[in-house]
């Protein structure tokens, strides 16, 4: 099995890009990644997007991107796994290289949420849940998170002010990030005084409408040796679970994260303490907390203590969301996982600017579809 290397990354700034189309965003990210890798052709393309068939009524993103890049002719395929779509594209591209069928693959994640009204986007985000009997009753992604949040605070007797520190941390990390949607600090009081989205979940514990595209060039070992560009080794594993968290044995435990993380660590022959940068999927503050516990980086009911002790800061024991995470870097749905992996790559190739975490040799990104109904764990390793 061939090893997989990230040889180039391309990111667009996350914003409400009124002047750019979905095609423009994914093409720009792709060209940046190809430039970064120093190549002009790839063997295949995988595009991950969650919302484009709904908000833009645009499917068929593989052939569309190939056309935009002047690469029509090569295989190019869209991949979907709710908000983990970008990771699903990385997974598919990586598997193609591991199988020996490709030397170089372009992987892109894209979503442009600002083309929809807030209520349309909220409804579209529920496409990752069971429509038949969860979407049907009017539940939203945030109302499901709110139930998990309430249960967590009740079971572990933890106040909201402990969990609401997570968005504060993310904003602190986004300050020096050029591609971040919200590169400014916020205070805990700001989070706690923001309006409820769905009680107890507050606005500043969620993400906003965002547009963005991120791209990676993945190559095999032979190609990697020829390229004069900083590289990292990529290991990605995946797992799935029931779509509805309340059908699971325990809604406060995400087995898919636990499984995917353990598989990736085992394949990389690493222990949890070898991971020195962690990218969590903080679509809400509570998801970050439960993810930390489910993946074994914190004891159950105690993840908030890592926050309180400052261990997740840039100079902490386990720097987390070093470019701002979903909350502050931004969360353009299916594109987000590719941002996470690209950011790990920037860290491990010492191109993270003021947020550089020098001690790290390995980083882990967790990318989730729905409330951890799909989980990808991607390890990047310094080479």
């Amino acid at each position: 099995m061939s090893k997989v290397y990230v040889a180039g990354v391309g990111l667009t700034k996350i914003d409400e890009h009124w002047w750019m189309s979905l095609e423009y965003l994914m093409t720009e990210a792709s060209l940046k990644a190809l430039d970064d890798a120093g190549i002009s052709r790839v063997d295949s393309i995988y595009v991950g997007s969650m919302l484009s068939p709904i908000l833009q009524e645009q499917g068929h993103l593989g052939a569309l991107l190939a056309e935009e890049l002047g690469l029509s002719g090569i295989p190019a395929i869209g991949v979907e796994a709710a908000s983990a779509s970008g990771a699903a594209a990385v997974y598919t591209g990586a598997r193609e290289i591991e199988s020996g069928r490709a030397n170089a693959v372009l992987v892109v994640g894209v979503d442009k949420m600002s083309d929809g009204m807030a209520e349309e986007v909220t409804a579209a985000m529920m496409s990752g849940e069971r429509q038949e009997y969860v979407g049907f009753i009017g539940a939203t992604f945030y109302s499901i998170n709110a139930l998990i949040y309430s249960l967590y605070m009740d079971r572990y007797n933890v106040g909201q002010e402990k969990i609401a520190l997570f968005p504060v941390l993310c904003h602190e990390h986004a300050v020096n990030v050029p591609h971040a949607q919200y590169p400014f600090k916020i205070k805990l009081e700001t989070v706690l005084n923001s309006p409820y989205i769905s009680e107890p979940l507050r606005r500043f514990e969620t993400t906003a409408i965002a547009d963005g595209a991120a791209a990676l060039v993945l190559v095999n070992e032979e190609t990697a040796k020829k390229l004069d560009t900083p590289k990292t080794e990529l290991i990605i594993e995946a797992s799935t679970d029931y779509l509805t968290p309340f059908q699971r044995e325990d809604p406060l435990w995400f087995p898919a994260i636990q499984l995917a993380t353990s598989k990736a660590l085992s394949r990389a022959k690493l222990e949890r303490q070898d991971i020195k940068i962690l990218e969590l999927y903080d679509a809400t503050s509570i998801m970050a907390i439960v993810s930390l516990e489910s993946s074994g980086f914190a004891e159950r009911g105690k993840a908030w203590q890592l926050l309180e002790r400052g261990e997740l800061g840039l100079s902490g024991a386990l720097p987390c969301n070093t470019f701002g995470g979903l909350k502050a870097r931004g969360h353009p749905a299916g594109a987000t996982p590719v941002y996470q992996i690209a950011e790990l790559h920037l860290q491990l190739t010492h191109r993270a600017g003021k947020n550089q975490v020098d001690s790290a040799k390995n980083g882990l990104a967790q990318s989730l579809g729905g409330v951890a109904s799909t989980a990808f764990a991607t390890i990047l390793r310094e080479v």
Partner: protein
Amino acid sequence: MVRINSAVIVGYGGYVPRYRIKSEEIARIWGRDKSELPVEEKAVAGLDEDTVTMAVEAAKIAIKRAGIPPSKIGAVHVGTESKPYAVKPSGTIVAEAIGAVPSVTAADFEFACKAGTEALQFITSLVDAGRIEYGLAIGADTAQGRPGDALEFTAACGAAAFIIGRDKNEGVAEIEAWTSYVTDTPDFWRREYERYPHHTARFTGDPAYFHHIVNSVKNLLENDGYTLNDIDYAVFHQPNVRFPLVAAKLLGIDLEKTKPGLITGYIGNTYAASSLLGLVKVLDQAKPGQRILLASFGSGAGSDSYIIRVLEGIEVKRSLAPTLDKFIERKTYIDYAIYARHRKKILM
């Protein structure tokens, strides 16, 4: 840019209906968070009021200040997006009511919230070209907001009227320059037979309101050789309290020049009357020789901006009729139920 030779405001008037509903009351009904309301309260027309009656009220005040016989008014243009009749001009009713018929041209303008400044452009041009001696431009609206929608907090009622003539000696202010900046930007619309408009949330900000106003003002300043130092007051379209202040900041205009004409917090967004009522408020306090920058915004989208210089006549004419503050301070609070009745929101 072709210069305006001779167009002066000889009379002006603002009208705001008596009734007010507090944003808190609307928030109470819809269970909305009370910590971030866009305005304090908004003006609501009475049961027997509509765009035309309010336009007439404002026109009568303008005529009083102008001191001219209404029969000399050669054009009545009403800018509005809430015409009582879909087919039949509001302008004819206003012209008849003030005694300007029959030797008059009358028409309505529609360009969302900039219809009023658009009417003013055409009246200014007719006067400047010598086609009419006096003309009446009005911006008036009984703005619609879908119950429970964000717009409902601000969509308000009001009217502003301006009589334009040629003689500087009888003027209160001279219109020195205007320009427009228009693109096809669908940020807000109401299709035929629909009761309430649609809007695109934050899209109404950056690519719509701010882009058009900033470019309209920049073009005006550059083309006509003005600098920000020439401006003593800046009046922008006022959909809420924040937007005009942000627009001023983007343009580098001192907020203290913007606040004197900022009234939306007390009366809401009066749509086609909004920026023009801001102008009325500034004319109520400005001194001769001062310059006013006026920039409207209409969804769809466009911005008209004007440079207006205050003349000596202001001092006398201002006192000939009630100032806008009289109308703003005259208020009767109503609850949501009465409001729903006034604004015909209860359909059987």
